[in-house]
């Protein structure tokens, strides 16, 4: 049986593009700052040497990378586990068994709030940081998934066995 992947909201692509724009404009501001405020810019090459790759990178990330990433990002829930796949060029498919979840969290960043998005994060004891973070969900959906997950975890039976 194949995994029934569910795509994330289309506005996740917009979210990715905004992030790309913000990151790239920070880079641009730094470069502009150097050209404007450093007293002698003779040793620096023509600004176009930076400007053209910058524009190419912005287009690459904004158009190609964002849409590839959006296309590949999906999640699925089976009876036993939660699955997530993400990435554009480097791809990761992650599975977290439901009975290993320690806690669940819904988060909304500033940009996500403008787009009405949220992400749902599941934590396990496996690694230090966030373990499975599903981006690009509607806030309502995320809250609802969180509620169902928490219920499932709470009803988890534990065998008291000494022979494990």
């Amino acid at each position, binding site marked *: 049986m194949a995994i029934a992947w569910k795509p994330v909201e289309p506005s996740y692509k917009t979210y990715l593009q905004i992030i790309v724009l913000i990151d790239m404009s920070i880079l641009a501001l730094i470069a502009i700052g150097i050209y404007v405020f450093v007293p002698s810019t003779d040793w620096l090459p023509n600004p176009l040497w930076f400007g053209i790759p910058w524009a190419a990178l912005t287009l690459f990330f904004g158009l190609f990378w964002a849409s590839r990433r959006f296309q590949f990002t999906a999640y699925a829930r089976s009876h*036993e*586990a939660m699955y997530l796949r993400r990435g554009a060029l480097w791809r*990761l498919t*992650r*599975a*977290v068994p439901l009975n*290993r979840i320690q806690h669940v969290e819904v988060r909304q960043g500033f940009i996500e709030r403008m787009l009405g998005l949220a992400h749902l994060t599941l934590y396990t004891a496996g690694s230090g940081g966030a373990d499975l973070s599903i981006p690009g969900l509607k806030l309502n959906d995320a809250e609802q998934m969180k509620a169902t997950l928490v219920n499932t975890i709470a009803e988890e039976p534990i065998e008291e066995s000494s022979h*494990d």
Partner: protein
Amino acid sequence: MTELVWQRTPLLTIGFFIAKEVRNLVRNITNFIPVLAAIFVSNSEWLPYAVIGGYLVFIMVSAILNHRFFLYALADDAVHLRTGVFGKKSLTLKYERIQQAELDQSWYFRPFDLVILRVDSAGSAGKEVEIPGLPIGLAQDLRQRMLAQTNTNQAYSELAIADSEKTEPPADTEMTFSMSEIVRAGIMDNKIFVLLAVLIYPLSQTDVLEETLVPWLEANVSFIEESLWLNIGLAVAALSLLFILAIGVTLVRYYNLHFSILNERYQARSGLFTIRTVSFRYQKLQRVQLRQNLRGRLLKRFSVRVSQLQPSAHAQQQSGSSSFVLPVLTQNLVEELGNWLKLPRSANLDWQGISFIALLNPSFWIALIAPALALTAYANDIPLITGLISAALIWFAIQAYAIARWHNYGFTINNGWLAIKRGVFGRKENWYPLHKAQQIDVYQSPWLRLLGYADVLVHTAAGPEVIKYQPVSSALAMQREWSTMIGSNHQRWM
């Protein structure tokens, strides 16, 4: 609930608090770089002494204050702690939430029959509590009680309390390691290079060597220069002295190593001056590491490390002192230990290698070495033939190593255990109870996607493990199968 009786630790424990301050100093030594720089730059006569003196006073005062304000109370079901000089901290640790309770007999407490009780609780913060200076009898009682409470259900634990009022019951299995075994452990796990680095670093920072030692040697022992063999002999003698010193370090740590199993609780006690106890319960086992380095292979000995859940990065950093290690085991003992730990370890395990495609990427980078070396040799006026031959030899050695590495790598799944073996000169086997894994990843870089392969990452509570170069479809099938298996397994995992 009875009234809490707040107690202060004995005056002797000031030593413990001083030691703690000193440990803090060592840990935060980088914070003092500005101060050291100031001392260095100012070039004043008195400043270093003032800083050192000031710090000593600070250590003494804060140790005394910390001792004054360290209060503990033992109730029937919990330990209460009140600490802190300015910021007060009040902590209650229920016995039933305690994961680990160990007794450390520090060398400065041993003559007085006092111990340090070290308690770990569950939870993501991984709180560790140390109560110094408890009388040994009381501490042993307390430890029994804490561990009994963590055992399964209430009825049983009350029974266990009644039990523990008496003495510790005899262990199921007991073993003491002889001195010669510990010396073997010292040879295997030799920290000679660490020792060397520790000694050389301060020497290299000062001019003692160039300004004092070398002229002195030249003046007084000029005969050294006359014989090459004497020089070599001296160097060898110095290294062997260090080697023996490093064995001494292991001896101090593992002297009189005593291993026992009691009610699925594995325990190891050892130490020459400070007696440390580490233990784990079988239920909490997350990983078994079997290791044998080159010296170990020559001595036919293994070392074993068992890891439990390490709740935080902080705990992982200090895992060196608290993880369960048996440093020297014979082949027979390893097999016996494997039986006790229920490892399905046998000669006819179905070790699976990985595809030879895995060699492609490293081989490509290794292949770049030879031309790079030959070019460097050519640029440095080394005869062409010599350059080419040595480049080819080095390339061959590294490539052979890569192939051996690939050849010796293997993984297997047997009776719910995932095992991975690797190593060219030394050998390493990691065993994980698969049903305790936390998450399973399938990872593909663009390169792997091109080839149609993927890496499988298994994150366990004791750290991640990677199985490289699996065909994509079988990697995804593995992920699916394992996560379903884990998700429908309701045994306790911690």
